[in-house]
Each structure stands twice: as C-alpha cells, then as structure tokens.
C-alpha cells in the first residue's frame, strides 16, 4: 500500500502518459509522449519518477523483449495498478473541483 498518497505534477503527467499508452508504455514511448506536451525530462529523471511511482504502488513493471536498435538490451513495460487509477481519478477530481466556476486567466475568452 502507498506510503504517501499525494502525487506531484510530474508524477501525474507520467501516470497519464502510462495510462494513455496502454500496453506500449515503456521508457522511450513515455519520454516521447511527455516531450510532445513540452515536459522535457531526461531518461534518468523519468526512471526516478517511475521508480517512485512503483514504490508507491501506482504502477507495476515487467521486462520486455530486447531489440537490435537498443543494443540487445531489454525494455521495461509499465502499467497502471488499481491504486494508480484511483490516485489519477482523485487528482482529476481535485482539479475539476478547483476549476469549477473558474473563468480562466483571460475571463472574456472563457
């Protein structure tokens, strides 16, 4: 069970990316997905975040196949656990609650 239920902004982004990628969620695809939305983090820091999420019990990992372009090294696939889905929906609810009735930074555009 998780020790700390709070998830930070980066952790939330990584959880969303893992959830969106489904069965193809591994280091490079998660990195590219985050890069597309201007979350430019290194592979090392991505694995620090993934390790933290795994420790909290929000994601689980399994070893994948090794390919030639990876220099014969194996992939590690990630998927969301029940706790992860719950944490993500909680974070979504918090955000929805905060945004309820919020007109945005430019009110006439809302």
């Amino acid at each position, binding site marked *: 069970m998780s020790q700390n239920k709070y998830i930070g902004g980066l952790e939330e982004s990584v959880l969303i990316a893992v959830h969106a990628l489904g069965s193809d969620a*591994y280091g490079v695809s998660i*990195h590219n997905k985050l890069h597309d939305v201007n979350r430019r983090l290194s*592979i*090392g820091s991505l*694995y*620090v975040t993934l390790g933290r999420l795994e420790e909290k019990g929000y994601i689980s990992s399994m070893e994948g196949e090794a390919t030639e*372009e990876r220099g014969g*090294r194996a*992939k590690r696939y990630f998927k969301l656990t029940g706790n992860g889905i719950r944490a993500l929906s909680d974070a979504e609810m918090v955000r929805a609650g905060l945004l309820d009735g919020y007109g945005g930074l430019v009110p006439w555009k809302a």
Partner: protein
Amino acid sequence: MESLTSLLSAIGALAVLVLLGRETIRGLVKELRLLFAELRMKHIEAQLRKLLSPNEPTSLWSIFTQSSTAFVEVIKEMIYATMSIVESLLGLFSFGRIHRMRKFKVVKRKTKHLPPSSAQLLMRFTIKPSDQEVIFGDMNEIFNIMVKQNGPGWARAWYVWHAIRSSTAQLVAKLWKWGVFAYIAEFIRKIASGA
C-alpha cells in the same frame, strides 16, 4: 632490360596503391610507422645491451655517448607514445567512423554509430545497477533514431547532455533517499535558531 622491368613494376605498384585509395595508403603509412617503432625498440635494446655488457671495452666517453643516444631514443619513444594516445583519443570522438587496416585490406565501418563511451562510463558510475540495462537501452534507441534524423554529431551531443542530466537526477534522488537534504535543512535550522 632490367631497368625497364623495375620501372614497370614500380609503376604497377603505384597504380595499385592509387586504385586501393587514400585509406589504404594511410594504413600502409601506419603499418610502416609501427615497423619503424619496432626497429627503434630493437636499436635501443641493442644499445643498452652493448652498454651493459662486461666484455665490451668501455670508456667514459663511449658510456656517455651511448647513454645519451639511448636517452634521446627513450624521449622519442615517449613522444610517439603520447602522440598515439592523442590519436586514439581523437579517434574516440570521430563520430563512429573507424578505419582499420589488416594486411593491406581496408575495413571501413560507416553505418554503425556508437554513443560516446565517456558518457556511458559516467552513467555506469551514477545510475543504480537495476536500472542501468533499461536506461542504456532507451538511450541507445533514441540515439539511433537521432542519428537517422539529425546526424551522428547531434546525436552524440544529445547523448552526452542527457547522460549528464540523467546522472544528476539519479544522484539527487540517491541523496534524497539517504536523507542528506533533510540533514542539511536541520543543520541550517539549527544555525538560524542559534542553537
């Protein structure tokens, strides 16, 4: 007749070298340099043997000249060794182009670009062993994509930059886990409160 034969054979040899190309000539020069280095070593060995042999009639002047020649040769060897180290280091950053010559046959490796070994070494020291295999694999995959899209120079620069960033992130995570930051914060708090 003999001179004509030797002239024809020389022209033939020159034509073969031109046909084989610049890399072959470069390789040949390298081989010759190695051969000369070997010969020089043999010369030094002979000189030293002469110097140290008890049967040779020795004078002070001969000892001085022989030892100075040996000394100069040793210095020369040291310069050559430094030059070859610099050469090999430059080869390390030559964007994966490795030219080799084995018995006058050039083996050219053009398509295989490798990530910088210095950056890999840095990551070996900083990234935790359980994550190394996966992180190296991911970095290699992105590196190979970048080589095709942006060229090997850009890909290598990207690799080095990301190796530094990844190592820093992993080190900070380790320090955080060991409670180093909490200890520093406690220390600052103590100083601020005057305890």
